[in-house]
């Protein structure tokens, strides 16, 4: 048992702290796609190796050797000082890792640099009205016509499709093949003729995702990642990236501290909420669960560094536990606020900009998105505990 990173890493930590002292004031508080300040900050981060750290220089990254501990130290210091960690989004978090692994040289050259610099925004076109949890049954089809794929069909829940320049999209190219072997992974521009994006308002009141329709959308033949029919393997490489990152325990701890602060300042009938034993116990119960997930996270980090440690099951439960926990945590904040917990939008009595209400709903979305909790339980029981799949039901002719 050794929780220290060692002296050579403490030097690196000092470096990160110096960077924060020097540049931290330029860190934007928030900022989504196309925000000028956020893009400028991203550039600073990449130049210093705090974003796109291990992406090779030739593709616009910083070009450092992968070092799990250094990445961890950067994350710790940025979080401690509440420094913006740079741009996110599905292009950076999902597509870039896949291109690095499976893309052609031309694709890496063309897409990675603008994507990591926030100049090229992507959306993920996987889910369809008829293919959600059972993604492999998707039916949007692409047929080769000369040098072009012709895409027809519909995607749904496409986050940020209304903002995106490009889409990475799963389409069926081999209708005769078994369902997992007939899918291909295409990249195309969102301003290609034949694409229609219709916003879908979600329960938060925002329209974060969309329905996306394709009618004879023509895509150059070479804009495919991996081989024809290999799209399922390509997509699964990305889903692995997505799952672990949806609900990190450090963020849960920050939110929990926020609930505690709320309870230490808010009063009802002159009594501080933290002095109410029922609320207090709910808070501490969640603290226990957050601590368990934080310890689990340390174990996962350790297993990535020390390859002989087995933490397979510990990794498998993160998406399920993390998103459920976060949802409950936001719920507690709403409960302690009583009717103020109902406030939303321009309500003058709103606390914390309404983030508790927003995140309470947002995390319900994350419980569903990226593989529902039920699908996670299938995975845990089958791949983690070795229990059998349910028998298949033959489709009626």
């Amino acid at each position: 048992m050794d929780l220290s990173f060692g002296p050579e890493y403490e030097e690196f930590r000092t470096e990160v702290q110096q960077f924060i002292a020097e540049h931290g004031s330029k860190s934007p508080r928030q900022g989504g796609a196309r925000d000028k300040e956020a893009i400028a900050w991203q550039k600073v981060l990449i130049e210093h190796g705090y974003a796109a750290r291990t992406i090779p220089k030739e593709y616009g990254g910083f070009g450092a050797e992968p070092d799990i501990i250094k990445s961890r130290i950067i994350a710790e210091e940025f979080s401690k000082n509440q420094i913006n960690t740079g741009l996110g989004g599905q292009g950076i978090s999902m597509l870039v890792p896949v291109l690095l692994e499976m893309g052609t040289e031309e694709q890496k050259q063309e897409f990675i640099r603008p994507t990591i610099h926030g100049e090229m925004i992507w959306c993920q076109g996987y889910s369809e009205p008829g293919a959600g949890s059972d993604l492999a049954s998707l039916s949007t089809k692409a047929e080769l016509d000369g040098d072009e794929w012709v895409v027809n069909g519909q995607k749904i829940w496409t986050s940020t499709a209304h903002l995106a320049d490009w889409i990475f999209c799963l389409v069926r190219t081999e209708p005769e093949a078994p369902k997992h072997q007939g899918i291909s992974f295409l990249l195309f521009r969102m301003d290609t003729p034949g694409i229609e994006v219709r916003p879908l308002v979600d329960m938060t009141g925002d329209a974060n995702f969309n329905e996306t329709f394709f009618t004879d959308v023509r895509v150059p033949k070479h804009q495919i990642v991996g081989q024809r029919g290999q799209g399922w393997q390509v997509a699964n490489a990305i889903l692995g990236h997505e799952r672990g990152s949806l609900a990190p325990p450090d963020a849960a701890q920050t939110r929990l501290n926020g609930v505690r602060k709320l309870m230490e300042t808010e009063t009802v009938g002159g009594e501080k909420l933290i002095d109410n034993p029922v609320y207090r116990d709910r808070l501490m119960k969640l603290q226990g669960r957050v601590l368990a997930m934080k310890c689990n996270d340390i174990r996962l980090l350790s297993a990535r560094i020390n390859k002989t440690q087995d933490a397979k099951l510990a990794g498998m439960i993160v998406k399920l536990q993390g998103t459920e926990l976060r949802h409950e945590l936001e719920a507690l904040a709403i409960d302690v606020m009583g009717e103020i917990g109902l406030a939303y939008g321009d309500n003058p009595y709103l606390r914390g900009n309404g983030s508790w209400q927003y995140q309470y709903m947002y995390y319900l979305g994350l419980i569903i998105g990226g593989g529902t909790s039920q699908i996670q339980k299938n995975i845990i029981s089958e791949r983690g505990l070795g229990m059998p799949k349910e028998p298949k039901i033959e489709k009626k002719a």
Partner: protein
Amino acid sequence: MEFGLSSEQSLLQDSVTRYLSEQLPLDEVRKVASGDVNDAAVWQGLADLGIPGLLVSEANGGLGLGSLDAAVVSEALGYHVTPSPFLSSAVIAPVALQTAGRCEDLLGSVATGELRIGAALAEGIGARADAGLTANGNTLNGKSLFVLDVDADQYLVATSDRKLYLVAADAAGLSRSPLSTIEKTRSTCELNFSNVDATLVSEDPGVFDKTWDAALVAVAADTLGTAQSALDQAVVYAMQREQFNRVIASFQAVKHMCAEMAAELEPCRAMVWYAAHALDEIPEEATMMACHTKAHLSEVGQFVTRTSTEVHGGMGFTDLVGLHYWFKRAGFNRQILGSPELLRERALSVTTLAA
């Protein structure tokens, strides 16, 4: 950086596990539970492995190992619902005496298993109206309830102001009567004091607290093992039992019960490791982690043992498969040395808002 068990710790756990799976099949547990025999033979077997002296320093005649070593042993004991005085004699007593620096000469025979020290901490944790213990100088009057180990030679006794005393089981004026509980694998008793001469171990509540923290982590580790066994038994049973021409493990309702158990339990392993490590190496987090870990494991232990029972159907409810021993062990661990609510309250009182 390495967060996990050392190879020595894994070996230690393996050797205890091997001994228990060979020498302590469920039939042996049943004999102790039914009162046919006591736990002396098991304790002797564990003594041959050095377990009673795990936390006793080498200078005092023990192995001088640390809290994480105690936790991995405790987990193995829980996994096998082991009847033994490990918690009181191998954890609570050595930590108290060594922290206080008093009566350490006793620890040599504690380490060999010859001397058993029981623990009467309940008064210091949450004094009940039924009990009540007063110290006048070194003379004790009153009683303490749910004292760990009915067969101990000596008792470490706490008063409600968290002073610690040591008394011999056969001291004049002390009477001891066993208390039945739902859990038959470990014994508890009531101690009645009438002008009993005791040896003062410590007047410093800090010594009591440190002892309590160590005990909490040991109990949490016991629950980890208890729950892990209950989950393993559920999966094995589900893979064998057939209904509707299928093993019940292929029913999604059953799979999801098992997945939920695993999802709750797996992070607990890292939590127990961290809490044990904190006892020795991160003093500023030790109490907070001990409280949260015992409280959280109590919740998860309860959930896992009840769910495992459900997976076993009617068989789970019978005495035949004996799963109820694990159910009751988790229940016992939940109630003793502070309920989850009490411990969470204590955790809050020792933490300021983290940055």
